[in-house]
């Protein structure tokens, strides 16, 4: 593993990356600031989010069992995975039972965290990323550098050249609409042929066994509705107690994340509905270190995170180095407190100066003091 300072040196030398990061993070910051300012009860919403998450973590054992029962009652099959290997084996097994050689995926940090695509590839199954940015990265053998905008480090010309060499039928310009159309044509065929979809989850509702995903492109809804088999992988911390709790998070997340009042697509599915959507739904509840994080009185606050990624956009380190230097699917300030807890401090390349981070009051969707925790955890 390359240490952070050395990895950062390489990234910092990339002028294109620096310019893209600056432009994109400044743009999202400004959008977030303007939509947050519209809500008179923003701080109350953040506090409500914190309180709901604190309750979920305090009673996670009960909520997980409740979720499992509700999901099963609605017709889903629920699997428990202790670690990445178990989760991957479950997905591979499902694919094999259906004799599937290609799955369509929506953007999911959790599946990146457990290296699902590699595990599927090792079993002879290809996993097609259908999010526009994830597709770009996959076609080029690259990997995400931002939680929300995974291809933040790439530019249009690079993408044009990449598409021309991989998926495009004819000549392309670097007009964004043309690039999107090339991806759309390519993906549409894949969606129609797909027999198995794979998703992560933004939220799981314990009360109803419902899974909720928010997205911008609609590719996720294709993945979760067209294939007859759907597998959704859910970190165990992603639960909320009741359907009504989504009201809080569906306001917090888009405003804090993309700087939108509401994200374009919000999908919710509960078990299986005969004749509509996937007829076989598998839910994989993933631990992969989360129980250990939960056991730590200070560290457990990292499990409050709903991956809004607002902390990345204001971090003076992240906005210069980008995400690759962190060597983790979770970069930036939240990654600095989450990754070492999930995989061990010795395995996580870190800027390694929490005092530095302490000086920044980071915006985030849920009210948690990321930085005080960085100091207390010594990461």
């Amino acid at each position: 593993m390359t240490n952070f300072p050395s990895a950062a040196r390489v990234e910092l030398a990339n002028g294109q990356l620096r310019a893209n990061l600056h432009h994109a993070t400044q743009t999202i910051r400004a959008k977030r600031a303007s939509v947050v300012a519209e809500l008179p009860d923003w701080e109350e919403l953040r506090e409500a989010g914190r309180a709901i998450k604190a309750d979920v973590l305090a009673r996670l054992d009960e909520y997980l069992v409740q979720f499992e029962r509700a999901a099963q009652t609605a017709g889903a099959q629920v699997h428990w995975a202790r670690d990445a290997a178990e989760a991957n084996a479950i997905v591979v097994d499902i694919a094999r039972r259906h004799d599937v050689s290609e799955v369509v995926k929506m953007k999911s940090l959790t599946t990146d965290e457990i290296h699902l695509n590699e595990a599927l590839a090792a079993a002879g199954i290809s996993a097609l990323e259908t999010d526009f940015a994830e597709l770009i990265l996959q076609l080029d053998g690259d990997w995400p550098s931002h939680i929300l905008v995974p291809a933040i480090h790439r530019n249009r010309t690079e993408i044009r050249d990449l598409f021309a060499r991989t998926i495009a039928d004819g000549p392309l310009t670097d007009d964004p609409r043309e690039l999107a159309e090339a991806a759309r044509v390519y993906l549409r065929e894949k969606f129609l042929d797909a027999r198995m979809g794979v998703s992560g989850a933004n939220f799981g509702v314990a009360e109803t066994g419902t899974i909720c995903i928010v997205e911008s492109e609609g590719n996720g809804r294709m993945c979760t509705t067209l294939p007859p088999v759907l597998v959704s992988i859910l970190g165990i911390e992603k639960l909320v107690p009741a359907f009504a709790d989504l009201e809080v998070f569906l306001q917090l997340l888009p405003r804090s994340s993309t700087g939108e009042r509401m994200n374009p697509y919000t999908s919710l599915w509960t078990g299986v509905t005969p004749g509509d959507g996937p007829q076989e739904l598998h839910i994989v509840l993933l631990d992969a270190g989360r129980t250990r994080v939960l056991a730590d009185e200070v560290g457990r606050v990292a499990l409050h995170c709903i991956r809004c990624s607002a902390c990345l956009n204001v971090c003076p380190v992240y906005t210069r180095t980008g995400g690759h230097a962190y060597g983790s699917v979770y970069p930036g300030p939240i990654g600095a407190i989450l990754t070492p807890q999930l995989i061990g401090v010795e395995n996580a390349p870190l800027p390694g100066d929490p005092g530095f981070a302490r000086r920044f009051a980071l915006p985030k969707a849920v009210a948690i003091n990321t930085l005080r925790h960085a100091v207390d955890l010594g990461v």
Partner: protein
Amino acid sequence: MRIALFVTCLGDTLFPETGKAVVRILERLGHEVEFPAEQTCCGQMHLNNGYREGAAALARRFVDVFGEYDVVVAPSSSCVGTVRELYPQLVPDAAELGERVFELSELLVNELGVEDVGASFPHKVTYHPTCHSLRVTRVGDAPMRLLRNVRGLELVELPAADECCGFGGTFSVKNADTSIAMLADKCASIVSTGASVCSAVDGSCLLHIGGGLERRGTGVRALHLAEILASTEEA
């Protein structure tokens, strides 16, 4: 009112003029300032690098050395922030003392109610609000109020002022390349103002910024707020 100067380790070893300036300003306003010679570093470096016990020993010492004074003043929002925010985790009785420890501009504006300290500094100045002063010690606009009342001083706004300069204590040593990338942006902002002086309330950040400005041959000086406020028409 017994006022003690907490000069900080950087002030002691690299910027003694800053400490002297604090004393000159307060004496000019009619106060006496004592300097307890037993004082040491506040221990922020130790704490930030995981040496909690080493920091606790220094916190204990700080409370012993400064506990008897009515007010403790330091030309550093960073060190004041450590005393106020982090000491209570280390030494239980530090919380009470923390309420009497102030960064210079806070003491002048918020505690003593003074915005015009009788200074004169006929130069174009821009002000960099350091991270600690904004988000930990929260000195607010106290430094700006003081600068606006300095004779002859033209205060110009710094673009992207609240961006970190890249110093970050040991961060600048451990992550030199990232630190320099941040410094480059800060220096460009400073130069764009056309100011001949960049001021701040933290010697540590000014050390970093001053180095950057000098290496780039900008001709812009980095100067602590205290030294501007101590300047008069006579000297």
